[in-house]
């Protein structure tokens, strides 16, 4: 299919029309954003315009944006508000963290240091049985996907089958998050309690302190984010995506057409959980630590704020919202740290009141207006 003329850059430049330029930019913005993230940021780092902490921060934000994409699939498309996405993220993070800890400094009888130092009885301590397989990178990688995925499968299927919906579903996901958080804070679970997993040194043989490893981890995170966004966008364009919208709009109607919405909602929930788990696994080596604090209730609520501010049901909105708010956070907490909760709250309220479609919705309305006046 030939492209419309105003989508070809040469033509846009020749026309020198503001509306054509806007349309061109709107059409290509996702690809430009992807290029900027995957190649632009490492380029700026190579030129010395970004330092290592900037790079590490952006890498972490890419992981958080992935969580937002997952939430957008369940909340923006299927209309199911989930308040446990960071729980899945943290589970993925722990699975990766256990692998990293097993390949970090070992104390006593081959005990990862983070576990050894919180032990009440370090002398005769044995490595807990469930730690052992995590030394294998394949096992750990499978756990990153399967633990959040299976938990979401069982939890989602039970809840959706019992027709738990709307605010009730949000509340039980919140409750599950708090329960798991409390569990992970306990020392006797042998996952290092509130201290969490740390003392990481090597990932698949690469030295985590080396600059090349850091750049590599950033590029992998950014590329995974881009790939996830692309895959979820593709998915929403299938019949499955239309069915999720139908669940959101009118679940009863769908049932009386002979569909079982439980399967669709569960599938979306599982996909979102797996995305969050992978994001957590990429996040952990970049922060060097994963603790139960990553899954306190507020963390999952923040994901909802990112998606709402970016624009529900658009995928790009989830990415834009997550990156924009976290960058704003990074900038403002150094400037006016006390004011951040108020600024975030005000931003959320302003968007809900004046731009229900979020930043992406407002942008699209702006582009349409540009086209009409052209």
């Amino acid at each position, binding site marked *: 299919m030939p492209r419309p003329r105003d989508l070809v850059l040469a033509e846009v430049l020749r026309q020198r029309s503001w509306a054509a330029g806007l349309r061109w930019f709107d059409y290509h913005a996702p690809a430009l954003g992807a290029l900027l993230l995957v190649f632009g940021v490492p380029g700026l780092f190579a030129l010395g315009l970004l330092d290592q902490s900037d790079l590490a921060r952006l890498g972490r934000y890419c992981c958080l944006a992935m969580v937002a994409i997952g939430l957008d699939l369940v909340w923006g498309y299927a209309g199911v508000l989930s308040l446990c996405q960071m729980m899945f993220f943290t589970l993925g993070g722990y699975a990766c963290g256990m692998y990293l800890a097993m390949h970090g400094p070992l104390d006593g009888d081959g005990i990862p240091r983070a576990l050894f130092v919180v032990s009440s009885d370090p002398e005769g301590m044995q490595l807990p049985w469930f730690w052992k397989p995590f030394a294998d990178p394949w096992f750990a990688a499978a756990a990153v996907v399967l633990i959040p995925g299976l938990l979401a499968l069982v939890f989602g299927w039970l809840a959706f089958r019992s027709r738990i919906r709307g605010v009730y579903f949000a509340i039980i996901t919140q409750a599950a998050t708090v329960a798991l958080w409390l569990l992970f804070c306990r020392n006797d679970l042998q996952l290092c309690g509130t201290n969490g997993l740390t003392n990481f040194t090597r990932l698949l043989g690469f030295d985590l302190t080396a600059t090349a490893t850091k750049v590599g981890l950033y590029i992998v995170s950014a590329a995974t984010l881009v790939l996830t966004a692309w895959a979820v966008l593709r998915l929403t364009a299938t019949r499955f995506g*239309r069915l999720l919208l139908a669940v959101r709009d009118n679940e009863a*109607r769908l049932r009386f057409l002979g569909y079982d919405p439980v399967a*669709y909602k569960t599938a979306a929930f599982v996909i979102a959980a797996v995305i969050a788990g992978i994001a957590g696994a990429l996040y952990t080596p970049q922060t060097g630590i994963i603790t139960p604090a990553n899954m306190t209730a507020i963390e999952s609520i923040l994901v909802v704020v990112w998606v709402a501010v970016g624009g529900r049901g658009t995928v790009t909105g989830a990415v834009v919202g997550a990156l924009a708010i976290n960058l704003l956070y990074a900038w403002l907490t150094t400037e006016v740290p006390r004011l951040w909760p108020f600024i975030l709250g005000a931003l959320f309220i302003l968007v809900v009141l004046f731009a229900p479609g979020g930043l992406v919705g407002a942008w699209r309305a702006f582009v349409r207006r540009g086209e009409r006046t052209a």
Partner: protein
Amino acid sequence: MSDRSDIVQVTDVVVEFDGFRALDVPYFGIDRGELRVLIGPNGAGKTTLCDVISGKTRPKSGRIVIDDREVTDWPETAIARLGVGRKFQTPSVFDGLSVYENMELALPAQRGLRGALAGRASWRDERRILALLERVHLRALARTPARMLSHGQRQWLEIAMLMVSGARILLVDEPAAGLTDDETRLTAELLRDLAGAHTVLVIEHDMEFVRRLQSRVTVLNAGKILAEGSLEAVQADPRVREAYLGRGKHG
């Protein structure tokens, strides 16, 4: 009273809401291919009867048999797959999807999770969808989001969705509500055409519309069947007149 050949058989059904008896029907049946109209004052239990047949509401006691199968405790999804389609009293379509996409989801094939990843509808399904949209004057709006449709257009879209869904038994709750006279006429024509190949139960208040359907009428009042027969016969029935007049309703 029970007629074994009826495709829909509602026997000894009682529905209660917090002790309030909304429906109490010894027998209600619809013949295969019949067009039946259900009338009655507000709150008579007409929608509740549809709810019971389609599995939305469980009766306190009694049996529902559809196409020789007892479906009394089947989930609504299974009853729908058996071929019972329903248009709700308030038009109920998928607002976020286009008119065409609404129709596409109503297609009977690929209701499972695996079918969801399949591509678009087949060429033949597409032709059928477009032909049906033509009939309800929605062809030109195929790409329009359903939320932009007028009330009458939404009613039609929902009926067209039933027509494409492969349902053999159609429960159509107040299809003429909020329609103009011309639209009402077309809706009556549509429903009459559907009868025969389909079994159709229509709930309606608009007597002009009911007259047009030229079919058997069942009168429901306070959860009980008052009368059954032609519209003329039913309207002449003193009990029916009293039910309507007693509540100050049109009749």
